[in-house]
């Protein structure tokens, strides 16, 4: 009687000791896995590059820009399309299509902005007028100073 009682209590003792060790092992394993995976995961995420904080872009001489043509230039890291209309006026818009990120182009015959990837169409104010683009293109400000073209952030001419 006493013997069986004794063995039973030792049995529960070992089970609880075992489950305690199992739990300890499990937690250690999880911690160890975490310590392995976390650095790898962080490594995969590319480090942030600081913004270039460009406030204006010198786009060259007015005279060198023919009417009814366009040019894509880099504003910080983002491409900007600068268009000189038939009338001689300038327009500057973000060159990244709001649909799926392709670079847009200037259609000379209709004076519109066109994206070849999925047939998206914008007018020269940047408004998305047909096709899949969900949003208008961001406008940039064009300033003419001393016969030179300067592009700055913000809307309007």
């Amino acid at each position: 009687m006493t013997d069986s009682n004794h063995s039973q209590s030792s049995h529960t003792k070992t089970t609880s000791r075992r489950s305690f060790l199992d739990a300890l092992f499990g937690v250690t394993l999880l911690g160890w896995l975490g310590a392995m995976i976390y650095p790898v995961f962080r490594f995969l995420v590319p480090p942030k590059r600081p913004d270039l904080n460009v406030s204006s872009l010198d786009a060259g001489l007015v005279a060198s820009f023919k009417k009814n043509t366009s040019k894509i230039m880099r504003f910080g890291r983002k491409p900007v399309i600068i268009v000189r209309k038939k009338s001689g006026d300038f327009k500057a818009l973000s060159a990244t299509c709001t649909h799926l990120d392709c670079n847009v182009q200037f259609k000379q015959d209709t004076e519109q902005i066109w994206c070849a990837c999925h047939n998206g169409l914008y007018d020269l104010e940047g408004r998305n007028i047909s096709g899949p683009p969900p949003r208008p293109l961001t406008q940039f400000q064009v300033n003419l100073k001393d016969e030179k073209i300067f592009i700055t952030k913000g809307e309007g001419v």
Partner: protein
Amino acid sequence: MSINDWLQERFDIEAVKSFAAKKQVPVFFGSVWYYLGGVSLFLFIIQVLTGILLALYYQPGAATSYESVKFIVSKVEFGWLMREIHSWSANLFVFTIFLHMFTVFFSKAYKKPRELTWLSGMMLLLLAMVFGFSGYLLPWNELAYFATKVGTDITGAVPFIGEFLSKLLRAGDDVSGATLTRFYSIHTAILPLVFIVFLGLHLTMIQVQGMHIPESMEKVPENKRKMMPFFPNFVLRDLIVWLIVLNIIALLAVFFPWELGLKADSLASAPAGIRPEWYFMFMFQTLKLLPAHILFIEGEVFGILLFGLGGAIWFLVPFLEKPKYSRLWTAFGVGILAYIITLTVWGYLV
């Protein structure tokens, strides 16, 4: 003492032999479809071999990728051949896997007990497409650059984790040289490793469970079924088909070479006629046709959710199909196939 006896003394080679010999291939009008898995495997082997060769000269990087591919195809002896075989065989690889998948789908070979074979096969198809997508960028030409911009931007539209995923794939906010090295690593190190794991699983399961018997043959008593031993009879036939395929690739490589095109330029407008590889065309064309907004969400997000849902259903067919609705599922498959073919053709015509 024969080699066989020598080996038998060390391990049970007879058991291995009988394991290899036990598979039987049913002989019927659809037997021809049973070559597709083997052909896909053969094309994968070609990809590995030509890929290793190309890696000897290829230099990943925005300033070197395009130049090194140009060097391979114009200066290295038979470099053009290796690149052409790699590109053509990659296309045929995806094509045969698709064909293989659809024949398995329509013969209902995914049913119990072959659910895991189907799942591993679907994983292989998915991996083959990622192989294609990542490899497409490596020559760093204009077409690949914009296709990758679009492809990774689509990833960005996945709800919640999309933006993070897109950044992870691009190694930054935009497709750049950093994307290129990342894709190179994915294409040549990560994918082959993962692919081989699933391939091993797929092949082991087929070997353990044996070939699927078509429904028309299930009614015939087992001893009256027309069967052919897989080894060596079917394997020898397989080899002949592989030889034919290799010849087809050689002909395609010589007479229909892939162009290298212009070097990628992040300040160039996307050229007209930009398109992804043909096996993404039906999705590309769908995105092109969707309006900017559907209900309250953007068109592209809607498209992605639709394809995600469709893909998930397709993956889980063995678990979703109830015998009662077997015919309905076949009709569903026909619909999907028709959709893919129509949209693909449409994409190339417009």
